[in-house]
């Protein structure tokens, strides 16, 4: 078995696909950073090459479709252990049978792809709601999140549109990166936990968090308590950063 490793970027991933695609042998793809080697497999690091990456990108776009490319991007962002390998299988399948194979919702690979994309977007949509900002300066806000998937790139449009008149940082503490917006531009950049502690220190003391807690409590109907239902909508793993729960 052969394991290909890459630097974690989307270009890196596309480069890896370029080299893995023609091989007869079964290849698995992992991020170098989180890879744990085993005795039974050989691994090879693939250096990102922009031109190769661009060729794969254009080829998928023209020979397959935008929506297949989009699926591949979502699979990559899902950040699940086997997702990169799934992406390879998916692309192979599409080139082999043509893009119409996407209609075959009973095909196991197509189904896994659909489910993966759905999981990612479900979490994106959840975090449209679950992000909690603290004010750390006049009209400047900070929020920490720890999502399962690498969703920041998919959330930028929404938050920029909504909070276009304030500065904000949304910090993915799991992946040490943050979405930063300064009322003009929006971009994603590295941000360590230590830096975020500095930011949190600057928090402006106001009572809106307290007021929201009050609201949360008062709007509950005790006669209809149903923690299982609550949990299915808002799993416990998200509680840490939700100020209303403590």
């Amino acid at each position, binding site marked *: 078995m052969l394991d290909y490793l890459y630097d974690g970027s989307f270009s890196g991933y596309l480069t890896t696909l370029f080299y893995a695609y023609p091989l007869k042998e079964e290849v698995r793809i992992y991020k170098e950073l989180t890879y744990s080697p085993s005795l039974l497999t050989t691994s090879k690091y693939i250096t990102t090459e922009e031109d190769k990456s661009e060729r794969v990108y254009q080829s998928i776009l023209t020979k397959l479709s935008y929506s297949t490319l989009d699926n591949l991007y979502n699979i990559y962002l899902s950040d699940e252990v086997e997702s990169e390998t799934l992406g390879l299988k998916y692309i192979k399948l599409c080139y082999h049978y043509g893009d119409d194979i996407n209609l075959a*919702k009973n095909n196991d690979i197509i*189904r896994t792809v659909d489910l993966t994309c759905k999981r990612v977007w479900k979490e994106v949509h959840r975090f449209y709601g679950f992000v909690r900002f603290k004010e750390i300066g006049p009209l400047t806000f900070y929020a920490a999140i720890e999502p399962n998937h690498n969703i920041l790139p998919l959330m930028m449009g929404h938050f920029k*549109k909504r909070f276009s008149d304030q500065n904000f940082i949304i910090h993915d503490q799991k992946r040490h990166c943050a979405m930063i917006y300064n009322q003009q531009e929006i971009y994603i950049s590295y941000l360590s936990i230590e830096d975020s502690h500095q930011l949190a220190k600057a928090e402006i003391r*106001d009572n809106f968090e307290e007021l929201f807690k009050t609201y949360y409590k*008062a709007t509950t109907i005790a006669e*209809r308590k149903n923690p299982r239902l609550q949990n299915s909508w*808002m799993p416990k793993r998200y509680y840490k950063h939700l100020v209303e729960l403590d």
Partner: protein
Amino acid sequence: MDLKEKLRILSDAAKYDVSCSSSGSRRKSVQGQLGSTENAGICHSFTPDGRCISLLKILMTNYCIYDCAYCINKRSNHVERAAFTVNEIVELTINFYRRNYIEGLFLSSAIIQNPNHTMEMLTQVVKKLRNEYHFGGYIHLKAIPGASEELIHEAGLYADRMSVNIELPSDASLKLLAPDKKKEEIFKPMKDIKQNQLMHLEERKKFKKAPVFVPGGQSTQLIIGATPDSDLNILSLSEKLYQKYSLKRVYYSAYTPVNKGKNLPDLISPPTLREHRLYQGDWLLRYYGFKANELLDEKHPHFDTYLDPKTSWALNNLHLFPIEVNKAPYHMLLRVPGIGVRGAQKIVSSRRLAPLQFDDLKKLGIVLKRAQYFITCNTKYYGIVDIDESKIRRILTPQTMLLEENNPYEQLSLFSLNFLPSSNLSLNQPLNKSTILLEDTPTALTGEL
């Protein structure tokens, strides 16, 4: 009284209005201004009762001149009273919104002084939010029954959604429990809103810049179980509301016994199972092409406790089944129990490439447990019993599934609804508390029936 106290009292007083949806509106957001709306709606949190918090749902005040029997804020009740100022509501909304706690505001009110005055106050809040703060988030505003057409029209220029709660599903119930309210006064604002919507749509065809009017449409709420109205009455009313007033949603709220009174039922807990069945029925009206009188009739005016409405319907119309999944048209697939909207779409998509095998169906999200008795796959029938009404009914009826809070004693006590089929459940046996969740619970929320 400080703001926290007011918020506690006035959100507590508003919580029985179940609608918290922030969906359906596509107000354009403007660069440099706060706020946007999302067509699908966004939930920001979930309360321990499992309901979504999307909007800051509050009453402007709970001082009321009326005395509706079912309402906690009625004049004759001794409850804590409070009133927000316009500025307080605006501050709360903007600051909650900036912290991403909410999608926007859902503002309602008890009736102070008179309906017109109340409506005017509500309108002041939304005007301030939109005109001074350029707030582009979602606003759901109550239209106060009895308020003038002009006031309703003005408010509608600023709100994304408006609603008038009918609350009681029939004239008789209204007279009994809400003697101050008149049926005409409730339907009047609905009609006004509908007409204004049509008018503004026409204008927007001519001028792109013409203002929008309640782009998220209107909704209403019906209280379930406070009066003897049957499910048939309620669902037929909903059907009419969807057709006649183009309502976006009808919400059902299991009556929570907050007051005692001679005209009120003695419920121990809210009839949530009944509410659940009505939501399922409501989906069938809106997305599955069913008519209310297909699902219920004078002989069977109530939904089956044990089976979801679609399964019930299919069993009563077994002569239409089984249908062939590889051939049946989309609208027939939708009528199969266990095949939801998404499942039906996937069937239609996949069978274009090659005929589906029975094993494939599970992968498409079809609930075979129910669907197997109503379909064939490549002409073969896979049901584990013959196509026979009583046999299928027996196998699909859960053995123990009563929700704890839906203990039928409590619902039967007042109106003796014919809820309990003469089936295998003995009333004298203690209920099995470990099996209190209905298997089909999520279907009323996702609409995949």
